[in-house]
């Protein structure tokens, strides 16, 4: 810990120089020599039976080397073993506009495009549903035959005595909050490069994946290939945020084209297609009801969530479970009833996005809590403080809370923002609001439960003294490989420059469950420390032999092995390695990490979702200016504090916090997907507006360290927990600024203007009523 404690500014990313010099190769930058060009034909219809996909004219076009339809896709896929209902290319039916129906590989892009235009696609259209309530209507046609009411999954969980809780509450209020669907909008468009060698029957796949293991597994499944014949390599990846956790249709299609063509196929999706591929946060309606005592204590919570999930299952079951499960774990809640409905609709499938499942529910909860505190005359900070948890504890739904830094987060942002002196004293049109949030540090129970450890890291040391860590964990810009390097270097007492990290290549690195649910720091970090400790033990023993001391007398630090009792008796790291290699040769050690079963959630159905070894906690204050004439909201400043347990790399932690807050701001202010009869009308960076540098405020990010008992060096996650508190803090700030309560996200000028008009109408009516008295 000494070294980590000594470098509290943190270190740059180990692959940062590649990124700033342009040397970093992303999928579209790989060696494409000899590659055929892959293109996908997409459905023009929202919901239809496929009568005919005739590719004969396209097949005869010179230069076309492979052509596929749903007929070539026999095996369905999906991220959840219980809900695989999607094919790489549609079979039987299409269920959303833009769904892939055929694919072509050709000698060049022009030929591929021409080939697509020659494919004849004939359908019988079916009624289509673009809103959850239409899809749930009694007479709605089923989008999937096995799902009556177009209900993918409903969840009903009750913990504690909810009725009694409301009965003892002094104030009970209910709100309905709507949150628009949003998208990850990572800047790198989707791309894949697949190479099939017909002579060996081997497939090499390079793609924009966050979870190469899922990709590997689904390739084997859908191509009906032996897993051992497939190699998956992750190049540099230009952001993910959840978009690339699930295996995506174009990845499978690219591989199938490569096999059909007997060669290399490159697939680059346009930005529009990247948006259509989607898998992001669904449009959500939340009805939330809270019971609060005059003392500010929460007595009961009731919450109903309806998510419009899109056309396929994807992650849907998990998302709707998270939305309820993570009502817990932030505050001390004595009674919670949750009803969740995940609904199919004829739109691109939703999936996991930063803060998976928790963001919109948290928004609604915090917004209502803020309004009720106001009604009771309680300060928003105070009402949170009266409901804090005390670690270690377990929530009603059996989530383990092992460390809890929320109280300190509250103190920090309250002080930094000048809340006590400024709140309520700003001029009209300016306001302050606050809110809290949390997130898991890795799902304690992986989706594909195999009994294996949750993470494995190999560390190799060789005659040259170099240390190489091998991890399957996908660095997608979050800095996970740097975290592994720090963990290994720190444990071995080496400078970080002496450790290389090889990541996410199935031929060389151990399997990893991938970059999702903020699991890497906690799980892979612990596995890396475990591996490095094992190596340190071997090297310590070898050094002890060389120094003729007992291993217990040897200390490993600063690149040297020293006798603790005999000053001056020491050898360098390199000498210790040479000593260890005698009789053994090159050393490779393995470290693992496993979440114990008691951390894996309750026994109720779906109880594993939300379970984790450690929650991060965040509080933030948002300052806004509101222009009542134009409806424009300006975010002037944000103060945020995040309890990440321990900041292994404070530089990266700050970067993650800032990014999460900002992404929350995008969703809160302006981002939304919009469909016109199922046509994506938002599928560009012009219509899908993420904030520019001119829309983005300074963010004061503070790190709180609660030192988690199980985290690597005490660390927890840092990249998701701060996202969900932005939007409710913004809505509270708007209320503070102009006395308007917004019930919809995003807070675009039109929605703000609508709320202002409604407030003025109310004021006029109040004035009239007052005048009559």
């Amino acid at each position, binding site marked *: 810990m000494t070294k980590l404690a000594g470098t509290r500014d943190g270190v*740059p*990313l180990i*692959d*940062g*120089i*590649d*990124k*700033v*010099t*342009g*040397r*970093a*190769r*992303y999928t*579209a*930058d790989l060696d494409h020599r000899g590659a055929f060009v892959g293109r996908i034909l997409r459905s023009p219809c929202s919901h239809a039976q496929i009568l005919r996909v005739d590719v004969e004219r396209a097949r005869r076009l010179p230069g076309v080397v492979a052509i596929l339809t749903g007929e070539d896709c026999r095996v369905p896929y999906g991220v959840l073993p219980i809900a695989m209902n999607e094919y790489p290319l549609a079979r039987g039916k299409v269920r959303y506009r833009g769904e892939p129906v055929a694919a072509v590989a050709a000698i060049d892009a022009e030929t591929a495009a021409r080939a697509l235009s020659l494919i004849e696609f004939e359908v019988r259209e079916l009624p289509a549903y673009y809103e959850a309530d239409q899809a749930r209507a009694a007479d709605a046609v089923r989008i999937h035959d096995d799902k009556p009411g177009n209900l993918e999954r409903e969840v009903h969980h009750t913990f504690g005595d909810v009725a009694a809780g409301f009965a003892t509450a002094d104030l009970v209020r209910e709100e309905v909050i709507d949150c628009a669907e949003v998208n*990850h*909008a*990572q*800047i*790198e*468009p989707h791309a894949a490069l697949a190479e099939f060698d017909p002579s060996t029957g081997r497939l090499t796949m390079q793609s924009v994946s966050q979870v190469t293991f899922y990709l590997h597994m689904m390739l084997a499944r859908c191509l009906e290939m032996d897993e051992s014949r497939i190699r998956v390599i992750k190049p*540099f*990846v*230009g*952001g993910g*945020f959840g978009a690339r956790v699930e295996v995506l249709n174009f990845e499978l299609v690219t591989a199938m084209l490569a096999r059909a063509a007997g060669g290399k196929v490159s697939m680059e999706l*346009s*930005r*529009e297609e990247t948006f259509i591929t989607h898998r992001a946060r669904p449009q959500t309606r939340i009805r939330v009801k809270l019971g609060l005592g005059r003392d500010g204590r929460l007595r009961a919570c009731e919450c109903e969530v309806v998510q419009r999930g899109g056309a396929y299952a994807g992650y849907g079951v998990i998302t709707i479970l998270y939305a309820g499960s993570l009502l817990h774990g932030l505050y001390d809640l004595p009674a919670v009833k949750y009803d969740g409905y995940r609904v199919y609709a004829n739109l691109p499938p939703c999936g996991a996005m930063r803060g998976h499942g928790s963001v919109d529910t948290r928004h609604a909860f915090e917004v209502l809590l803020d309004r009720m505190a106001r009604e009771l005359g309680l300060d928003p900070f105070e009402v949170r403080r009266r409901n804090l948890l005390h670690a270690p504890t377990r929530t009603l739904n059996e989530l383990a809370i092992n460390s809890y830094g929320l109280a300190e987060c509250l103190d920090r942002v309250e002080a930094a923002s000048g809340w006590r002196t400024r709140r309520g004293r700003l001029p009209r049109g300016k306001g302050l609001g606050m809110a809290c949030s949390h997130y898991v540090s890795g799902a304690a129970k992986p989706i594909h439960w195999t009994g294996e450890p949750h993470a494995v890291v190999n560390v190799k040391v060789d005659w040259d003294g170099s240390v190489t860590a091998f991890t399957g964990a996908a660095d*997608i*810009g*979050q*800095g996970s490989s740097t975290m592994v390097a720090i963990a290994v270097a720190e444990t071995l007492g080496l400078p970080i420059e002496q450790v290389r990290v090889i990541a996410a290549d199935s031929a060389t690195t151990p399997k990893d469950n991938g970059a999702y649910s903020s699991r890497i720091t906690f799980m892979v970090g612990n596995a890396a420390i475990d591996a490095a400790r094992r190596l340190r033990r071997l090297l310590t023993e070898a050094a002890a032999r060389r120094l003729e001391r007992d291993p217990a007398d040897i200390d490993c630090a600063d690149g040297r092995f020293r006798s603790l009792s005999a000053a001056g008796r020491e050898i360098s790291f390199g000498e210790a390695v040479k000593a260890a290699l005698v009789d053994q040769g090159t050393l490779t050690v393995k470290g693992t990490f496993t979440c114990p079963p008691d951390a894996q959630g309750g026994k109720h159905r779906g109880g594993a979702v939300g379970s984790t070894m450690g929650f991060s906690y965040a509080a933030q204050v948002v300052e806004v200016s509101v222009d009542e004439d134009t409806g424009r909201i300006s975010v002037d400043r944000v103060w945020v504090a995040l309890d990440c347990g321990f900041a292994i790399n404070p*530089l*990266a932690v*700050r*970067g993650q916090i*800032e*990014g999460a*807050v*900002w*992404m929350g*701001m995008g969703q809160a202010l302006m981002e939304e997907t919009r469909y016109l009869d199922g046509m994506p009308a938002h599928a*560009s*960076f*012009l219509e899908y507006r*993420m904030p*520019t*540098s*001119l829309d*983005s405020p*300074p*963010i004061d*990010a503070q790190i709180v360290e609660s030192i988690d008992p199980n985290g690597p060096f005490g660390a927890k996650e840092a990249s998701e927990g701060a996202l969900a508190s932005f939007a409710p803090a913004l809505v509270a700030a708007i209320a503070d600024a102009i006395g308007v309560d917004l019930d919809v996200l995003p807070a675009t000028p039109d929605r703000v203007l609508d709320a202002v008009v409604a407030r003025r109408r109310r004021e006029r009516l109040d004035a009239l009523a007052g005048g009559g008295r």
Partner: protein
Amino acid sequence: MFESGPVPGKRLVRIRVNGRWREDAVADDQLLVDYLRETAGLTGTKTGCDGGECGACTVLVDDEPVPSCLTLAVRCEGRSVETIEGLGAGGRLHRLQRAFHEKLGAQCGYCTPGMIMAAEGLLRRRPDPSEAEIREALAGNLCRCTGYVKIVESVRAAVEAGA
């Protein structure tokens, strides 16, 4: 008036790329970004959108940062084009590259080349810009990772590090 090159649909174009003159047969309809990535093999310049919406492809044309997806390659005849690969000399990092690396101005790194070239264009015109000027100069370059906080810090750090 009607120019035509030796190859049907293509013409020889001389462009100074990162300080070296090149001469390539270029199709009239080739975008500068495709010329750089495919003809010149300089894949540091990225594509993030379907045209003019993200700034990832920003390069310097005669010292001015412009989106290379909104520029025809044939239009660059006789002009100087600089990409991320042209910054820094002799294996040493340019001050913006060093600052973006050390201050974590790059997370996933995909917007980084365009962002750095936009910043370099600013610093050539305005050696000591204010934060507002930095934010304005980068307003056509989208980043999805950083919230721009560490990008602005990186540009400031580069200014302080001097040329």
